[in-house]
């Protein structure tokens, strides 16, 4: 969607922002581990996307390009020194409203290798197809398929091992 010959327009980016804001925030929050930093990452990502919009090439969908910037912003935010402590404090505040998780999916996701975790979030929280996910992760489509298969196998193993 929103493919252009060269460079993205601010109108195009605004359309993607308004269209996918909730999904961007959900994935970013899942990566960083808490809501507010996820929203901050999305904000940062769009500032970056507008500033570097000339570097967008229409050989990929604009939305996939933006997803890549959003996931990178969230990963960068999570990697900042002192982030773990801040996130722990935020998580403590948010814990009252955290949904129940009888299957232990949160812990399972947390233990996944980085690429599997990102693939899972993009597969289930964005409307991207495998090609789109491949563009975001910078891998081949076949690798996305293999990554998700490995994650599914890991989930099945976890569910068999953990007594419920």
């Amino acid at each position, binding site marked *: 969607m929103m493919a252009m010959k060269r460079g993205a327009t*601010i109108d195009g980016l*605004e359309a993607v*922002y*308004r269209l996918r*804001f*909730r999904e961007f*925030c*959900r994935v970013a*929050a*899942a990566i960083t581990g808490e*809501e*507010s930093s*996820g*929203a901050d990452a999305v*904000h940062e990502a*769009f*500032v970056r996307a*507008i*500033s570097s919009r000339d570097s967008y090439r229409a050989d990929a969908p604009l939305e996939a390009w933006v997803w890549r910037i959003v996931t990178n912003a969230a990963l960068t935010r999570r990697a900042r020194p002192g982030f773990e402590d801040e996130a722990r404090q935020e998580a403590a505040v948010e814990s009252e409203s955290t*949904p129940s*998780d009888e*299957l232990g*999916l*949160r812990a399972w*996701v947390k233990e996944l290798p980085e690429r599997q975790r990102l693939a*899972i*979030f993009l*597969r*289930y*929280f964005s409307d991207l197809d495998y090609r789109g996910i491949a563009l975001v992760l910078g891998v081949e489509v076949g690798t996305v398929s293999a990554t998700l298969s490995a*994650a*599914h*196998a890991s*989930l*099945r193993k976890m*569910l*068999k091992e953990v007594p419920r």
Partner: protein
Amino acid sequence: MIDADSLLNDELGRVFPYPNVQPDWAAVLSDVQAMQQGRRRTGKSRSPRRLALIAVVVVVLCAAGSALGIGIAQRLDRPAAWHGMINDWLSDGRIDGTYSCGTTREAIRQLNHARITPAAEPFRRYERVACR
């Protein structure tokens, strides 16, 4: 066998709900503007187009100096005020110094003569204040 895909489709969204945040496009644009202004101040975002413009201005200024019959060495000792004003603008795209109405008008005349239109607006704005 557990259908992991279906299970994740059903459960993952519940475990990771949508954050309760509202979009704020105006804030994004505001931060972009602030960032761009910051870059202009530090002069880090000089594009090739801007560098080309600077080169043209420098050539024009040298030509103007020669046309007036003033030696380059003499100009380096005592640069014309309008010249200094244009250099001020060239450094970061803003006019930070204080210049008289006459200097401003001479700078505009020189710029018009050289047909350097991107500079027109900041100099006109400055003129409106300096020549009140």
